[in-house]
């Protein structure tokens, strides 16, 4: 442990912490754009700079380890003016269509401009305009809104391993893109959507949320993925009682990472094919029935077989898709109501 001073208060933190991490854990927010826990630290956006006593230059707090006795200012005048400058440069080359941007109200660039009262930019000049890539099935890429934080580049390479993106050109012309500027269909993209979830602005946006509602109207519900046994935690985005998308949740062992199924495989929930009513087959065709009618029918049929043949005539298959509570009741039903141990599920398949 080392002891450091942040904004005049003393803290004791583990020696391998960065200034950013030390501040964060003690409830002090430092703005960041390119930093993402678990990914390689590039320190490239400079948004998280802080002033350290005895050091002339401002230091990127994400990339600077704490040292014993260090004195840090996170919101000094110098720091604030540096952050303002970064923001002014960013908005000078940003397609500011906030009115209709899907990230309006949930955008780091907006948040920090507001926080540091940046209303306009003195840097007037060319703005880059790129056509919006709507070619892939899952998300759009609008590079006129890209702030080049590089998080999509890193997460795709370091977590997924797909290496879809890279920076192209230099300076003002810098652009994040896929190899040969191809549409994602032609790359190694596995549609995990992790790049979309780390984008701090409106450059990468799930198609399913487009024009569906403003971020503040969308309820986010943390739950467990319904596909595989990893059990990733994720947030369902819900608007007007419908799921419109999925975003990362960092509380689980998956650390906010997802695969294509968790991220984009939820639409079956709203499929037209969902069963909506109990069905009873009469003369070979299914007819809709009320619950009362259907349950009475089932109970009657089961009761009949039970009386005639006993428990050995029954078998039950439960589901690895159902909850623990449902599985518990299912085997309890088979064992106590139908008197049989003939109960299994698809663990072997």
């Amino acid at each position, binding site marked *: 442990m080392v002891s450091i001073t942040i904004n005049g208060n003393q803290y004791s933190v583990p020696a391998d912490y960065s200034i950013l991490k030390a501040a964060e854990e003690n409830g002090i927010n430092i703005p960041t754009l390119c930093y993402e826990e678990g990914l390689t630290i590039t320190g490239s956006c400079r948004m998280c700079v802080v002033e350290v006593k005895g050091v002339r230059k401002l230091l990127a707090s994400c990339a600077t380890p704490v040292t014993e006795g260090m004195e840090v200012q996170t919101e000094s005048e110098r720091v604030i003016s540096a952050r303002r400058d970064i923001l002014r440069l960013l908005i000078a080359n940003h397609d500011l269509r906030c009115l209709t941007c899907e990230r309006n109200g949930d955008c780091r660039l907006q948040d920090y401009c507001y926080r540091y009262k940046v209303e306009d930019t003195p840097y007037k000049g060319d703005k880059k305009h790129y056509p919006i890539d709507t070619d892939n099935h899952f998300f759009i890429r609008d590079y006129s809104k890209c702030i080049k934080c590089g998080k999509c580049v890193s997460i795709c390479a370091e977590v997924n391993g797909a290496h879809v993106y890279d920076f192209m050109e230099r300076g003002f012309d810098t652009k994040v893109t896929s190899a040969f500027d191809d549409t994602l269909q032609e790359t190694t993209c596995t549609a995990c959507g992790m790049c979309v979830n780390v984008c701090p602005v409106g450059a990468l946006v799930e198609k399913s949320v487009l024009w569906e509602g403003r971020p503040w109207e969308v309820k986010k519900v943390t739950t467990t993925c319904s596909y595989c046994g990893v059990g990733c935690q994720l947030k369902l985005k819900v608007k007007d009682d419908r799921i419109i998308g999925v975003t990362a949740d960092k509380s689980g062992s998956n650390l906010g990472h997802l695969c*294509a199924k968790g991220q984009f495989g939820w*639409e079956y929930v709203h499929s037209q094919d969902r069963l909506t009513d109990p*069905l009873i087959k009469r003369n070979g065709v299914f007819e809709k029935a009320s*619950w009362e009618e259907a349950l009475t029918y089932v109970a009657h049929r089961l009761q009949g077989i039970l009386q005639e043949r006993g428990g050995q005539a029954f*078998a039950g298959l*439960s589901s690895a898709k159902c909850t623990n509570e*449902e599985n518990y009741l299912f085997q309890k039903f088979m064992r106590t109501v139908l008197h049989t141990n003939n109960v299994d599920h*698809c663990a072997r398949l």
Partner: protein
Amino acid sequence: MTGYRIKQAVRNGRKLIVADPRKIELTNYADIWLRHRPGTDIALINGLAHVILRDNLWDVEFVCERCEGFAEWSEVVEGYHPKRVEEITGVKAELIEEAAHLFSQAERASIVYAMGITQHTSGTQNVLSLANLAILTGNVGKEGAGVYPLRGQNNVQGACDMGCLPNYYPGYQLVDALESRHKFTQFWGTDLPDKPGLTLPEMMDAAYSGEIKALYIMGENPVLADPDANHVVKALKNLDFLVVQDIFLTETAELAEVVLPAVSFAEKVGTFTNTERRIQRVRKAITLRGNTQSDWETLVALANKMGHNWVYPRGPEEIMEEIARCTPSYGGINYDRLETRGLQWPCPTSDHPGTPYLHRDTFSRGKGKFHGVHHIPAAEEPDEDYPLLLTTGRNLYQFHTGSMSRRSKLERMRPEELMMMHPDTAKDYRIKDGDYVQVESRRGEVKTKTQVTDHIPPGMVFLTFHYKETPTNRLTNSARDPVCNIPELKVCAVKVKKVMN
């Protein structure tokens, strides 16, 4: 997700050995790729153990202090010298030596496996031989080591934990042990059958033969998921009464007399237990669709209609309280404690923090046991009539029988089955990439499009079971492992012929 973590580990300088007949993404990351013939896992693993023993690379201390059965086992392994293993598996002897050295030198080594190991007539033995390898090298009971079976479905672990098994009550309490039967007789207040029940494949046989009259299915689709599908359909049609609860009218539900509509994960409250044994919350995000209700409500209503008195006014939370009372490993679980990160069982009491890894100081049976197991050939190998080996699996964009994933945008990534075939084999059959073929086994036939690729070795073809248009399980063999009854989905013999679309 597991793939991401393995790739990340390799990027961080860890070593990777992949044993797979197919070329998969991970083989690109592997230091050593053991491309053995399907159905020769035991020989391969025994071969590795043989080299580790011969070259004195095993963990003597761990084996002496914590294991038993070593002497008998080592006699078995004695016979698996690399040359012989090469003959059985097709993997070069030198590569086996190299892999054995790499594996045994690791300070901590993990073994990760899934259905590729288990879905064989020798499934149990395959797993035992992996366990042998882990204890031989002392790779159990410490962080970053151990044997990791990956669970396919989101709640397979939970369904097993909850006693949806013919021989266990919740928490793996044996149905034929007097003590546990007595406990549950009291707890549930009713007499209980004393003999273990039938496993899924046995149920299908019993339905086929008429012993089973009624089948209750909650959220499963055996018509597409189970081996030898034609047999399954006949079995289900032979029932007096079939009731299915599901969210879609699946191929199985279509055969039912009554179908009860269930709800999706987004409309329900409950818990799933993942492959790390972590019990996690499922939260309701949207209201019920149409005239549906949760499976638990249906079960409660039905039990009560049949004269029982089940009352859970507080719903799933209250059911979990009942589970905790009768399941020691879930004893400390309640919804409040699951709010943030979930808990890993065993978690016996409400102040127990959960258990991240097992067998730290002792094994559940006391000592770790070496099991001498011999190579057993697959039940059906290619021959003159059916000259190709069919192995089955999954693709990234689809899930199981596709009833969920195919109703989402994922469908656009892989809308149809593509049977993989090696270029050399394809040449023999004059099949080109994209051609349609008919695949036939002793049990049935299916039609599929072909993808010519070196991702699988010559003489072999690969199919998934995601697509109802290509119901692969009409081909597969329902021959089973004698211990746990898992069917041999990974090996059977087929022939193919080109057809017009």
